[in-house]
């Protein structure tokens, strides 16, 4: 039987469009079947709104920095003006929708640009009109305040606010560097505030993600990760900072850093002199240095010839050969004190040593070093223990047998807590039946035993619905029959059964 030609149905869609070359625009929409969007974009963090707590925290961090700056420079009025302007801007930004205007550019950047623009404009105008602007402080506060007001308007986006504590850290570090008094406490206080603000912003950021729908009974009770995160990172950061600072400040641990002084800090030192006095103190002041010694003139043997320290003609110290009267100039080269003759030949080199006197260095135990070593050793041991524990445990396997073993362990734990541990050689099914008659009169445990027994020894694996149901039953039975206290075990009463859950699927 031949194939009979039948009337053809017309194509219900237009012919396929010709393939467009890369970069060439496609046909107009509506003339072709819908083309799925093949988005190859990168992972992006969704835009999140900062909560009121986070906004206040970031503002406090910034105001704290302004306050520190005002305290260090005695410019309290500037600091208060800055706090006020930023506060007003932040208040407006958080109560209105004005932050939509900052979608393309950050408020901080626009604030800086505003201040710069206004400054230039005011300078140009005052010069052109030959105005005598009285009260430079007021002008400065107005210009600064205008920028901070603009910066405060963009005070709702988490991504923008995260940069604010970083920027606020710059003046804090400067104040801590140049200030005196309780700068360490103030700096640490600002650090704690900044960490808290960043943590609060991160909590807000997490709220911007989608939440999966929970199937298990513990879906609505997420673990409390917030407070632990905040406390952990704050304590660890401060401990690490203090540890590193003290570690680097111990000379024996960091000789290269501890013994080096930059030129502007080089105000004195101790020079070890061979065959002479052990230490000779001298003062230097940017190259022209006098020197002093404890008891009159000191003699130094160089190549068996005694030399003594004298004042040179230019006021610089020199070494004079006691026998010939030849003088050797002294100069600091690198970290050493070098004696050269008139031809520039090096005749002696004195190495710099620790500033502490030998009798002080050798006196007693340096408890700081001991403490440091103990702390570092404890931290290393803790890390080693943690790493070995994690390595031994490893990620939990995800097969149905290990799942069933975990559930059987849950039941074992439950029965042990009630004083009726699983007997040796008792099957899972018999164990659950025993639990029904003794501890938890819930008939669903029979089926739980079936599911677990099949998962452990059967050929197939339990369905996801069975898994969920089993976990739910175990959870409910465990919750409905709490373990009795030791004083309750003698007079424990049977508890009521609970309603059966709906089997999913």
């Amino acid at each position, binding site marked *: 039987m031949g*194939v009979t030609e*039948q*009337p053809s*149905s017309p*194509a*219900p*869609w237009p012919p*396929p469009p010709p393939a467009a070359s890369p970069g060439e625009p496609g046909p107009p929409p509506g003339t*072709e*079947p*819908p*083309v*799925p969007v093949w*988005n*190859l974009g*990168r*992972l992006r963090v969704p835009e999140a709104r900062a909560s009121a707590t986070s906004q206040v925290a970031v503002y406090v961090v910034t105001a704290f920095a302004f306050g520190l700056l005002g305290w260090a420079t005695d410019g309290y009025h500037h600091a208060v003006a800055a706090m006020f302007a930023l506060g007003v801007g932040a208040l407006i930004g958080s109560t209105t929708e004005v932050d939509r205007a900052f979608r393309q550019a950050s408020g901080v950047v626009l604030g800086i640009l505003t201040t710069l623009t206004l400054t230039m404009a005011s300078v140009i105008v005052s010069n052109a009109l030959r105005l005598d602007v009285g009260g430079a402080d007021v002008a400065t506060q107005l210009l600064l305040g205008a920028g901070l007001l603009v910066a405060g308007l963009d005070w709702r986006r988490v991504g923008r606010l*995260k*940069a604010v504590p*970083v*920027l606020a*850290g*710059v003046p804090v*570090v400067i104040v*801590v*560097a140049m200030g005196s008094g309780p*700068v*360490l406490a103030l700096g640490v206080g*600002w*650090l704690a505030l900044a*960490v808290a603000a960043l*943590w609060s912003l*991160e909590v807000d950021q*997490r709220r911007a*993600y989608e*939440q*999966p*729908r*929970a199937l*298990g009974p*513990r*879906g609505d009770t*997420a*673990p409390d*990760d917030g407070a632990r*995160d905040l406390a952990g*990172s704050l304590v660890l*950061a401060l*401990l*690490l*900072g*203090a540890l590193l*600072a003290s570690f680097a400040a111990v000379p024996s641990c960091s000789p290269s850093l501890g013994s*080096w002084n*930059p030129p502007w800090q080089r105000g004195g030192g101790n020079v070890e002199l061979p065959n002479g006095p052990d230490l000779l103190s001298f003062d230097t002041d940017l190259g022209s240095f006098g020197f002093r010694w404890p008891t009159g003139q000191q003699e130094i043997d160089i190549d068996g010839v005694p030399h003594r320290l004298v004042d040179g003609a230019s006021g610089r110290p020199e070494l004079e050969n006691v026998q010939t009267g030849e003088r050797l100039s002294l100069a600091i080269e690198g970290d050493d004190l070098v004696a050269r003759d008139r031809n520039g030949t090096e005749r002696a080199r004195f190495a710099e040593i620790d500033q502490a006197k030998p009798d002080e260095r050798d006196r007693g135990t340096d408890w700081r070093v001991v403490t440091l070593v103990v702390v570092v050793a404890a931290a290393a041991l803790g890390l080693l223990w943690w790493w070995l524990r*994690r390595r031994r445990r490893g*990620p*939990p396997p*995800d097969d149905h047998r290990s799942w069933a073993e975990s559930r059987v362990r849950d039941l074992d734990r439950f029965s042990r807590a009630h004083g009726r541990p699983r007997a040796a050689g008792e099957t899972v099914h018999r164990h659950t039946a025993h639990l029904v008659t003794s501890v938890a009169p819930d008939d669903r445990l029979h089926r739980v035993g079936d599911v677990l027994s099949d998962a452990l020894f059967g050929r197939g694996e339990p369905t*996801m619905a069975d898994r969920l149901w089993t976990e739910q039953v175990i959870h409910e039975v465990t919750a409905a029959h709490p373990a009795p206290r030791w004083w309750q075990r003698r007079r424990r009463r049977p508890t009521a059964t609970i309603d059966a859950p709906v089997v999913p699927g």
Partner: protein
Amino acid sequence: MRTASSRSRLKRSTATSGLAALGAQAGLIGLLTDQRAMATVGLALVGAVTVDALAAWLTVRSVVLALHGPPEAVTGETSEWVLTATGIRRPVVVTPAVVPRAPRYLVRWGEPSLITLPPFGRGLVHHVGLDVTATGPLGLYQAGRRMLVPLGVPLPVGPKPVDVDLTWPRPRAMSFGLTEGAPLGDDLFRSLRPYQRGDERRRIHWGATAHHGRMMVRELDGTGVVGLRVLVEPGEPGAMADHVTGVAAKVASTALARGWTVQLVTADGTPGRPDPATPSGPFGAALALVPFQPVATTTRTAVVAGERAVHHQLATAAQGPLVAAPWAGLTCRVTPGGVRWE
């Protein structure tokens, strides 16, 4: 089946770099100038950044994902999956590495939860790419891993049936026999039912009409088997190929609903189960998976029993020559040019 996973990678933001640079400079200057306060504050800043990076990295490192999904999926439609994440210590964000990117799920617990995956392309899906990311407590660092989570049974992603206005040819018997709902002929009496508008007058059962007091007609089954062969030529992979296979699915399912025997002929692009290579990191481009061979040389000819079989076969229908034995029944060829009856 192993879960292929990339190495854990860290990504920092501009603010993080600024904070780390500020802390490092302050710490270094403080150490060099022996200013203990400055050194402590600076190094504590560095410590905070380091702790954040470490926490993020450790969070991502221990997570293992498993997916349980539907038995089949349709192109252009999202699907619901049960996600089980084990080894969770802190919240992680799970993002499908397939396209499109959204949505991103924040998973806080290890219990199974329901997520929606974006539409897959037509084909056979063996693995689902998921990007797992986590931030530190302060959100300064983002750590991530890309996982190719294997599916226990490959997921066929078939076309969505497309409604078309077709002119169906007059059916003819291909053979004779008793088949369920054999449509052609009136050889076998099946039942009586009330008259409906459009019923043929010759089917009126006058005796039953007199008995029931209202018009009754008889229902008859035929013994002529109507067969339809659907030849599917989707053409180049892409939207048009999906459209063509969608039309073929509609034609086949309509014929099945009429009780016809449907033979589907496609060029089979079913791939073997791939051994997934280690994927790249999560912060680059998404996975560009091609779930089936775009061009195939093997012809798959099968009498489909239901819509699921149609769906499965059309999921891997590819471009290629069709070679099939002679067919006595109706034949229709579905191509990008339209539906043609032969």
